[in-house]
């Protein structure tokens, strides 16, 4: 069995895990990051894409609001290449308690969330589709964030500093020697090969799966209650500003414009299994109805896709009273030093929290790691820009069209909806060394537009086939896998325009390609 040896093994390749890897690498530690799927495919890749201003928590959870407000500024500075500076509104619709608006304004003032009340007419001028019966409106610095760009920028940055990033490697055992954790055994889910990673410190950044990893280490009571939330992406941007209802956070009270779509979310339903991605029809209907409250006509617009994600809601069932747990109760995230909590050294669990505070979570974690290693090194992630972000330019939805216009005649267009040219797909396949078109999708948004791959994915499969060492059956497999994956998010919203699209796609896949009988 192959062996790796490192300072820090990070289990979990979401924003937090990638953030820990980047932070530790920046501090000069040697890092191995393992993730059972592709990076950003757990909770990080399954949310609506909001970079919080903190407004959402201004009343309900002031310390979280404060934390978000500070991290919002930092993440904007270090990762503009993943961020669209949409700005955000909190608006009082006729469905909201009008008294909340004053509490909201006060909450923002008390927590440092930048907030400016504007005339409802001004909000309507900027967002003409907004409910015209809005009575109050506040402007906050919400933004949208392309999480795959963020996570891969973190991973690339870590790699540039020597880190080894291993997607599709699942932790199958944690090596425990008495009261000491010494790394883990991971299995390559594609080849089945196993690998031993020997590490001075093991960090479980596995979010909703943290209980499972702790279990592998023989540690009891790390309970993360997965809270399932549903999101629906609409076919185009009905708003260009993040729009929140000005009320206590509840279901379906936000629409986030991100890249070419806008996403309405979400719910919070307890579930047992963090891998439970089931979509409940009533929730779909409810989301569309909630969207309608913010943007009249919403439910008649074309829904593109639906998905669910699970929040990692941490509850420590280990009742060891005072001082045993390092969990800072005032924080939304939880860092467990298992030396303090369980007397087991070399092992930390970081869970809870939210994407906006991923950097802070990573900082806290690596601070604790350094402390245990007896080698305190300062954190620099708040000022060090991520790869790709050095020009300080935010993403703009117009960018791709502008780029496409410059290369209209010298590069073939493969994904028409997301305007992805052939060269980008070829480069990505080569760089990732992947045969999985879903990996390419996350990096480029391949097939994420209106036709959901109906017009591009066989082209991409053809390009894949042209690469060295990829045979017909592998390319066909990639095509089928992609189509099956897309279908999961399409079938629950099959009505109207997307139903027509699905029929046409189906005729192409079945009638033209005979996809079920590909060699």
């Amino acid at each position, binding site marked *: 069995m192959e062996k790796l040896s490192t300072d820090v093994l990070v289990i979990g390749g979401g924003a937090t895990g990638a953030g820990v890897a980047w932070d530790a690498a920046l501090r000069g530690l040697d890092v191995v990051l393992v993730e059972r799927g592709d990076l950003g495919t757990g909770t990080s890749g399954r949310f609506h894409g909001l970079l919080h201003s903190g407004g959402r928590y201004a009343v309900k959870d002031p310390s979280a609001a404060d934390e978000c407000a500070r991290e919002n500024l930092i993440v904007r500075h270090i990762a503009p290449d993943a961020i669209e500076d949409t700005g955000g509104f909190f608006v009082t619709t006729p469905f909201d308690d009008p008294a909340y608006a004053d509490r909201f304004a006060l909450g923002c003032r008390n927590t440092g969330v930048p907030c400016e009340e504007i005339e409802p007419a001004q909000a309507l*001028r900027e967002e003409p589709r907004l409910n015209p019966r809005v009575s109050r409106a506040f402007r906050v610095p919400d933004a949208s964030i392309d999480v795959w760009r963020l996570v891969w920028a973190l991973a690339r940055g870590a790699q540039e500093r020597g880190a080894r990033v291993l997607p599709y490697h699942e932790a199958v055992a944690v090596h425990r020697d008495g009261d000491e954790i010494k790394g883990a055994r991971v299995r390559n889910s594609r080849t089945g090969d196993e690998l031993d990673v020997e590490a001075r410190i093991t960090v479980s950044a596995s979010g909703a799966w943290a209980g499972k990893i702790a279990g592998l280490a023989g540690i009891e009571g790390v309970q993360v209650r997965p809270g399932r939330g549903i999101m629906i992406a609409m076919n185009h941007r009905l708003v260009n500003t993040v729009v929140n209802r000005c009320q206590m956070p509840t279901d379906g009270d936000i629409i986030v414009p991100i890249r070419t779509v806008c996403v309405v979310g979400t719910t919070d339903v307890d579930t047992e299994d963090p891998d439970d991605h089931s979509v409940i029809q009533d929730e779909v209907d409810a989301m569309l109805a909630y969207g309608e409250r913010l943007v009249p006509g919403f439910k008649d*617009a074309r829904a593109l896709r639906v998905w669910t994600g699970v929040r990692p809601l941490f509850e420590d069932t280990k009742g060891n009273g005072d001082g045993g747990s390092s969990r800072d109760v005032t924080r939304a995230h939880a860092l467990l030093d298992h030396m303090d909590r369980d007397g087991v050294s070399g092992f930390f669990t970081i869970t809870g929290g939210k994407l906006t505070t991923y950097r802070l979570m990573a900082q806290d974690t690596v601070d604790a790691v350094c402390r245990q290693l007896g080698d305190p090194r300062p954190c620099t992630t708040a000022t060090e820009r991520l790869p790709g972000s050095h020009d300080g330019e935010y993403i703009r939805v*117009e960018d791709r*069209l502008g780029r496409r216009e410059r290369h*209209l005649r010298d590069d073939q267009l493969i994904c028409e909806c997301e305007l992805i040219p052939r060269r980008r797909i070829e480069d990505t396949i080569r760089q990732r060394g992947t045969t999985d078109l879903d990996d390419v999708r996350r990096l480029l948004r391949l097939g994420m*537009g209106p036709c959901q791959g109906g017009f591009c994915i066989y082209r991409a499969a053809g390009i894949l086939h042209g690469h060295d060492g990829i045979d017909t059956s592998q390319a066909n497999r990639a095509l089928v896998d992609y189509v099956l994956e897309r279908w999961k998010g399409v079938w629950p919203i099959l009505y109207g325009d997307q139903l*027509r699209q699905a029929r046409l796609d189906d005729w192409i896949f079945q009638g033209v390609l005979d996809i079920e009988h590909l060699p």
Partner: protein
Amino acid sequence: MIEDLLHEPLRNSLDHCVKCTICETVCPVSNVTPLFPGPKYAGPQAERYREQGEPVDEWSVDYCSGCGLCTMHCPQGVKIAELNAHARYAVKQRGGVPLRDRLIARPTVLGRLGTPVAPLANAALRARATRVLTERLLGIHRDAPLPAFAGRTFQGWARKHEGPATGTKIVYFHNCGTEYYEPDVGEKVVAVLEHNGYRVEVPKQDCCGLPLQSNGLFEDARKYVLRLARALAPHARDGTLIVGNATSCTVMLKREAREILGLEDDPDLALVSRQTYDVCELLLELHDRGELKTDFQPVEEVVAYHAPCQQQGHWIGKPALDLLALIPGLVVHELDARCCGIAGTYGLKREKYQIAMDVGADLFNQVAASGAGLVACDSETCRWMIEHGTHRRSVHPVELLHQAYRL
């Protein structure tokens, strides 16, 4: 800010696009040049990347000629051409509108300038040296078909014309082409209408604003079309119909001004829009009711008929074909070429003339193959292009009816 609001219904229609590509198969422009990537790309696809008020580096949509065939053929109801018109407007807003476009978009200004000095102006427009100069200075292609000034106006004729004292009142919306270049076509339209029992009124009127709209000058286009609506509405209020012979200008009144310029809420325009008829549409309705005079004398001609894109945008079929079929002796070949290429002012432009000629090539070849000596076509700019491309005379279908009535 009004742009934001009026744009929404068009933008909503992009949701209906299923990428089927039918629009791209019918687009006359993208089929002959790689400079225009096609209606699906420029319309519903690119629209997802456009944010009101935010600049985007795009230029290719300016190569859309605005013929509207994409919208007409879209089985899902996407307002493709209209989305493109808006994108073109945004491109022009950002990049500025060249003097040339401002000029050729104002036929009334050109008409007023050219008419009093018609012989001189026409000679200048025919002279190679002036055309080369015009191309260099203004960017109007030296070979592009420019009409000759008639040297008189249709309004001048109409003021003196004494029609019948009785009959059903109808308002004639002649267009700028009739006014300054082809007053004789207008006279024939009036004669045919009067022969069928109408009392034709010709109120003072101006350009409908279509050339301004297609050149991305929306604000000016709005002024023009609303002024026209104010002039025509008082007549329409008592139920009087408005009839026109220029299919692009009538479709502007019927539909495009409301949809593209977002004037859905103007009551005058709404009224005018409802009451406006294309002349062939009106005459065929008369015939369907048994009220059209059919005292047609034989016309021994072979004629090819081309329905202009904007005529097809009326969604009325091809009434001219049914009318021409009533004329004894006349042999009519229906052509199925997409477009003559000119698209109003598009083919006049230096950088687009060759595209227009390439678009028209199919039509020109069909005319040649048909053996027809004459081409009937409802739109004046198309007729000028057809004459340019085929070296055959092109007439409005009503001119043939006029001839057959022996009026």
